[in-house]
């Protein structure tokens, strides 16, 4: 322990109403525990004065309000050390005074107590769903945290991008359902108990939907149809950028959410699984000029938000305001935030919601060389972090393939989702598109050396149908969301296999399972980084709701009984993932080339139809096969033949001749257990000249 007695700067020089103070350190921002006191540092470009407001935990009224003496200000930063505070029971906020001239962009309001944007934990919503005290003027309060977690020898796993199989999940939904049989349902701790399941499934990266502190009661209202409360369930509206959501932690009520999440990350890393966070930097929970003033609006409205000349809020996010990401100060907060999570929580990567907004200038025009994206791409702390962008926004900007990436950014490949959905459901003329997707979308990511790992391939995600619903509904059914089914996307490219919604009819159920297996086998044999949506591996349904953003009920909760009911499907996915791991050819960092690179004179990739070497690219084509050729892990020659028949009639595919014997690994046309064999247990093909693919099925055949 440092000998504090001798350090001169650990002694108070000022006093205010019994509190001992001294000028603080401008850096690091936020509240930092020093020995004997706490350093508070906050900045605002336009505020005229600032007051630190201290509460005892949970008390309605402040214990003291300490105005920052002008000598405690350095540039635009107010900083102060307060001595002898009980770090566990103190809550703090700031009052900022300054002009209230909306037309100029200033909305200072000294009557409001503001949350410190750098607060490491935020109180007010410690228990999920507990009715808040709506009269409390300062509901979200900053609190202090001990940052001495014992990581032992853990650090971010830094897995090569091409190895990743991402599993997108919602922390609460993952274990909230009673069938999860966990001690702390719907929490980080609940996730701890499901690590063996994830390991056995075979994914090596989980992407958590927003875990930064958010207010589940934002715009909460009663559903006109069910009378239930509708929440801000997904959490795409951040209150605290540096604080894990207390309501997601079993120990949230005692303020130990930081330790709990760090422990979860540590255990998940032990299972060899990376953790990616879904982060929202395009807007905040403060909404437009009618929304609540929580933090940024009261601190420095003109700096933090994109404003129209009259001082109103641009709305590129569709949620009321737009964060002014390319302003130097906001850029530094975003960088500080991501560095904090990467360094203190050992987070492996970040997925940016509506990332196209991060490339707009303060007046909304897209920038060719956005400073924020560049800073993120070359930041030393984030150097090994995965950066994944949702490369569009609600303001009409669609940058899939053109997102300014600096060779570092990957993107959610919306085109992959649409092309594969349409091919699998039987739309004609998409063989060419499918061929491009299978190679890792070189049309989008082939230029300036980005490669297939820039493409996050996915069929489903939190936005839209689950995989089972994709093949059970033609129309969306969002009545429970209370917006008269107007919300949610309409271009779902789904097909209900003949019956709308759940059915007991065996042939329809079997067809739906087959469509799921066919789609997944395409996804996991495509180059690029595959992403699964929580529960699709066991046939989860949301009863046709393709925008369940507000439902805290079984629509969102993962039903663990499905692991038993759909045991075959789960087995199929587990083995499919083991096949992907077994064949490096499917996971290369480079786009394949057509005329060489395979074993001896075979090309690395070649496309075929019902006749070898003659793919059918016509307008009516619903069939395609491709042959990968190269070396496997033991450097032995590898031949992988993947054929898919989306037609409603079966077809004979003559196989290309290879210097090996064909063995069947996967045939989604067959019922379990013959639908898939474990790597190494592939079955020798009796007739080596070809195979018969039943309607709407796929086969994966290996040369051995």
């Amino acid at each position, binding site marked *: 322990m440092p000998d504090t007695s001798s350090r001169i700067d650990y002694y108070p020089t000022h006093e205010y109403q019994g509190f001992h103070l001294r000028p603080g350190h401008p850096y690091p921002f936020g509240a930092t525990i020093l020995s004997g006191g706490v350093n508070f540092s906050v900045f605002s470009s336009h505020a005229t004065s600032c007051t630190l407001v201290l509460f005892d935990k949970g008390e309605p009224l402040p214990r003291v309000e300490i105005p920052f003496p002008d000598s405690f200000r350095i540039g635009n930063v107010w900083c102060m050390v307060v001595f002898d505070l009980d770090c566990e029971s103190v809550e703090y906020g700031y009052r900022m005074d300054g002009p209230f001239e*909306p037309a100029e962009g200033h909305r200072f309001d000294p009557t409001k107590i503001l949350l410190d944007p750098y607060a490491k934990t935020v109180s007010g919503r410690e228990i999920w769903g507990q009715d808040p005290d709506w009269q409390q003027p300062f509901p979200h309060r900053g609190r202090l945290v001990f940052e001495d977690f014992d990581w032992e020898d853990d650090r971010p796993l830094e897995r090569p991008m091409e190895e990743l199989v991402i599993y997108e999940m919602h922390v609460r939904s993952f274990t909230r359902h009673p069938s999860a049989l966990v001690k702390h349902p719907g929490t980080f701790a609940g996730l701890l108990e499901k690590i063996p399941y994830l390991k056995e499934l075979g994914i090596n990266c989980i992407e958590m939907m927003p875990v930064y502190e958010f207010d589940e009661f934002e715009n909460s209202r009663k559903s006109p149809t069910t009378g239930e409360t509708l929440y801000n369930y997904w959490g795409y509206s951040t209150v605290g950028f540096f604080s894990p959501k207390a309501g997601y932690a079993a120990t949230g009520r005692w303020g130990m959410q930081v330790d709990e999440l760090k422990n979860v990350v540590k255990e998940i890393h032990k299972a060899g699984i990376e953790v990616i966070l879904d982060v929202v930097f395009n807007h905040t929970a403060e*909404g*437009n*000029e*009618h*929304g609540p003033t929580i933090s940024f609006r009261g601190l420095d409205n003109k700096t933090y938000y994109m404003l*129209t*000349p009259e001082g*109103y*809020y*641009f*709305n*590129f996010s569709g949620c*009321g305001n737009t964060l002014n990401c390319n302003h130097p100060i906001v850029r530094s907060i975003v960088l500080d935030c991501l560095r904090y999570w990467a360094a203190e929580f050992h987070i492996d990567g970040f997925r940016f919601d509506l990332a196209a907004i991060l490339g707009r200038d303060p*007046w*909304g*025009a897209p920038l060719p060389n956005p400073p924020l994206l560049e800073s993120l791409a070359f930041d030393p702390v984030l150097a090994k972090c995965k950066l994944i962008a949702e490369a569009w*926004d*609600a*303001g*009409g*900007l669609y940058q899939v393939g053109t997102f300014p990436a600096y060779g570092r950014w990957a993107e959610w490949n919306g085109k992959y989702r649409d092309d594969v959905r349409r091919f699998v459901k039987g739309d004609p003329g998409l063989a060419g598109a499918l061929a491009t997707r299978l190679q890792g979308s070189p049309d989008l990511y082939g230029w300036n050396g980005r490669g297939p790992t820039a493409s996050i391939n996915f069929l489903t995600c939190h936005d839209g149908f689950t995989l089972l619903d994709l093949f059970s509904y033609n129309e969306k059914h969002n009545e429970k969301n209370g917006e008269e089914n107007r919300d949610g996307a309409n271009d779902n490219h789904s097909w209900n296999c003949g019956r709308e919604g759940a059915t007991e009819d065996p042939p329809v159920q079997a067809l739906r399972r087959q469509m799921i297996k066919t789609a997944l086998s395409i996804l996991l044999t495509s180059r690029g980084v595959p992403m699964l949506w929580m529960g699709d591996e066991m046939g989860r349904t949301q009863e046709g709701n393709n925008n369940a953003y507000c439902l805290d009920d079984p629509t969102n909760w993962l039903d663990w009984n499905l692991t038993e009911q759909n045991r075959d499907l789960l087995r199929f996915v587990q083995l499919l993932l083991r096949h992907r791991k077994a064949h490096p050819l499917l996971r290369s960092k480079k786009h394949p080339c057509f005329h060489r690179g395979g074993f001896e004179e075979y090309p690395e990739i070649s496309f075929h139809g019902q006749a070898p070497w003659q793919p059918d690219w016509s307008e009516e084509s619903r069939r395609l096969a491709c042959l990968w050729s190269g070396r496997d892990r033991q450097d032995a020659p590898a031949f992988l033949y993947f054929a898919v028949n989306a037609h409603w009639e079966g077809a004979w595919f003559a196989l290309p001749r290879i210097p090996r014997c064909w063995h069947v690994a996967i045939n989604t046309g067959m019922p379990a257990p013959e639908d898939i064999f474990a790597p190494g247990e592939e079955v020798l093909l009796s007739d080596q000249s070809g195979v018969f693919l039943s309607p709407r099925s796929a086969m994966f055949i290996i040369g051995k």
Partner: protein
Amino acid sequence: MGEVNFTFSDTIAGYVAAFHRSERSFSLRTSDGREFRLFLTPTTYARKSQNLDEGYIDATGQMGELLSEGVPVYAYCIFYPAEQGFRIEAKSLIFPGDQAGSYRHEESDWWPRQVRSIADSYLRWQFNYPQEPIEYHNYRTFLHLAGGKKGDYLQETDTISRLVYGFASAFLLTGEDRFLEAAEAGTEYLREHMKFYDADDDIIYWYHGIQVSGDREQKLLTSEFGDDYDSIPMYEQIYALAGPTQTYRITGDPRILEDIEKTIELFDKYYKDNRQGGYFSHIDPITLDPRSPMLDKGNNRARKNWNSVGDHAPAYLINLYLATGEKKYADFLEDTFDTIEAHFPDFENSPFVQEKFYEDWRHDTTWGWQQNRAVVGHNLKIAWNLLRMNSLRPKEKYVALAENIARRMPLVGCDLQRGGWYDVVERLREPGESHHRFVWHDRKAWWQQEQAILAYYILYGCLGKPEYLKQAREAAAFYNAHFLDHDDGGVYFNVLANGLPYLMGNERFKGSHSMSGYHSTELGYLSAVYINFLYTGQPMDFHFRPRPRGFRENRLRVAPDLLPAGSIRITAVEIDGKPWTDFDPDGWTVQLPDSERSLRVKVTLTPVCRKGD
């Protein structure tokens, strides 16, 4: 003479003809078919029309989709001189709707929400409600938004009455008690402080207002307005009834009916000209004689004008008929409209009606500020009210005059380049003049937009001609895009021709013109009725609070306005929250139960399939 080779800014209103995405430009076709090519700039931003108490709706991101064929838009542009003509760059856009043919102001609850917001703003400004109770003693005619409430202040009868009309209309639409409380308190205050009961003739007239200092009141018998100095103008007596009559429709309070009937007695006894028809516009304060030499001071001796003939119907008389159903008021209405139809049109000389007359209806073109000038809004008000009257007692000549006005006005009173309607123009054009000259300015007043919106929506609702719907939509879109004050609440009085608010001089004080609390709420109330019932076919709820032993034969009349027979039906009634079945669906009346206390009545009126058929 220097040519126009300098930059300037202006608004263009129109419909998108085409959007050229690559060139970032679009062509805009004005209401009368002229096309302009407008270029977008990197800093062009856009918003959608937002209602009062609604947040700012930024649409900068959706400009691409919104600028599609047929979408209405207001583009504020800068004109740069170019080789031939100008290069026009749009700097900010306002979209009244999301797509062609869809207007936010035609949403079924758009206007009721607007009326609620305006009424609440006035409760806040005038009475500091809800912090303090509604106390009309504190009411100010001149409301200095910045200044406090110190020193003497003036309370004018007709501005209080108009505000009471606003509160009563807000209650009819929303049923929220604070508005009825404000309406009844205001009616009570008028009766207590502004009423002069003349025992000799058993008639009532209303003081112009009172000058309050401390707890003392100085009665002002004659008007303090320049044009009506030292006389009792009929215009003020008429509008003194506006608020109480609208309140009477809700409560049936017999004291209000008595005040109204005795004021009508005043009109018949002292203002009516039984020989040559119509009503005199002013009378002597002492002798009540319209021909008194004392009136020469204001040039008002033995004169007749638009207000004294035309203002009865819209101000109180139609509402009085709706509440009572009595034949004598229908006759009175018919008489005023016959008089207007007989004397006002002057189409051989001018598209505008004549507004000032001598006793024998000779045109008086030398009076005060009016001279030979036209108020665009009065012409439209005549067209609008003729159509109302035509639903009560159909006459070919009513519709003919209304359509005649409706056909001519857009060419001489409407701004086809920027949208909106003008104020006062010369009735005649000098030789060589392409446009009627603006008398003072080309600004646009809030209440004249109302006349256009209501005139063309009722014309379309009753006659179904598409050009009327187009005019109605353009007028209402301009009003909702430019006149709503989203910072302080309520509406702006005036906007410049290009739609930017004009906040100079006493135009700034919303209180001094509580009229703005009248016209804006009347517009909201009747727009909701005409659009929902005569166009989009949406049902509406209306709220009443009938007093015990109030309405004759305990029968509540709920017709919202003079509408074509059979256009709407009562489909549901609730009394104190419980369903009630004793009502005449097509007679628009509800037979009330006997009760010792006032009843809470909610009536649902549903149009009979009117989707623009």
